[in-house]
């Protein structure tokens, strides 16, 4: 069926391919270019989390990665791996 589809359906014009590829690349570029912002974001998030938990500052992993979701092939995702040492008991 796929074979027939590719034979008879109208092929996407190369312009549309270009446009789609560009849009994806630019999402990546626009997100990537702000390492400074990423650093600020990280500090802010850590500040909030630290109110509730003790975290391991040395083993942090904080980055923007690209994953596939059901609706979209390639979307940027904020990925944070924050090892927890202990909960802050004083909160309770």
């Amino acid at each position, binding site marked *: 069926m796929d074979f027939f589809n590719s034979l008879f359906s109208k092929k996407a*014009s190369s*312009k*549309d391919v*270009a446009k789609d590829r*560009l849009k994806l*690349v630019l999402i990546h*570029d*626009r997100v990537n*270019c702000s390492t400074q912002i990423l650093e600020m974001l990280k500090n802010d998030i850590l500040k909030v989390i630290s109110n509730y938990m003790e975290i391991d500052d040395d083993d942090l992993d904080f980055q923007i990665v690209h994953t596939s979701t059901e609706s979209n092939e390639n979307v940027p995702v904020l990925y944070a791996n924050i090892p927890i040492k202990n909960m802050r008991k004083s909160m309770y």
Partner: protein
Amino acid sequence: MGEVIVITSGKGGVGKTTASANIGTGLAMLGKSVVMIDADIGLRNLDVVLGLENRIVYDLIDVIEGNCRIKQAFIKDKRYSNLFLLPAAQTKDKTAVSPEQMLKLCNSLREEYDFIIIDCPAGIEQGFNNATAGADRAIVVTTPEVSAVRDADRIIGLLESKDLKNPTLILNRIRQDMVKRGDMMAIEDVTEILAIDILGVVPEDEAIVISSNKGEPAVTDDSSRAGKAFRNITKRITGEEVPIMDLSADRGLLSKMKKLLRFGS
């Protein structure tokens, strides 16, 4: 009080220098006093495109280092006496200039001339920082290709971070026949992606190659379509409202005739 306009693109080879030469000359044709600065130090080009390469004695670095007065380094254009070129140095490197020095230079020129057009080097390094330092507004040149549009997007971001808000776009080397076939991004496709205002569209035109061979900008050529596009662009820069050129107009007829000929043979 004059206006300093930087012409930039990020990617090389999309027509920055051609655009600078044509816009500078076009503004001079409208009677404005214009200084064009070639900020591409070490890779100067604006002089050859304007046909002024054999008149260079002093250059931008000489001015900045104080080896000569600004006006000694100016090369008066062959055709328009209100148009001047400040050429780049060819045998020095771009670390010889700092953004502060460029800003100072632009501010002193602004006092006396209507427009200062800066031809920015490709890339996003020091040359870019120098070229944009004294600018009031920026024009981004791109072609309808993925690589050029991607770099244009990067440049727009950098311009905005330098407080050069609302840069405008020149879409260069459009081929209407390919756009029609769906094999080239159209104006709307590019502006949709980049989300900036369009200043003008320039069709691919042999006249551009011929004119730079001769050292005479296409904007002076009445029969050239690209020249007309640049005349429109310069009018828009001065605030006049000119509709975007209909690119399909005579190209359609031409290709029809070509088809007929091919059919007959």
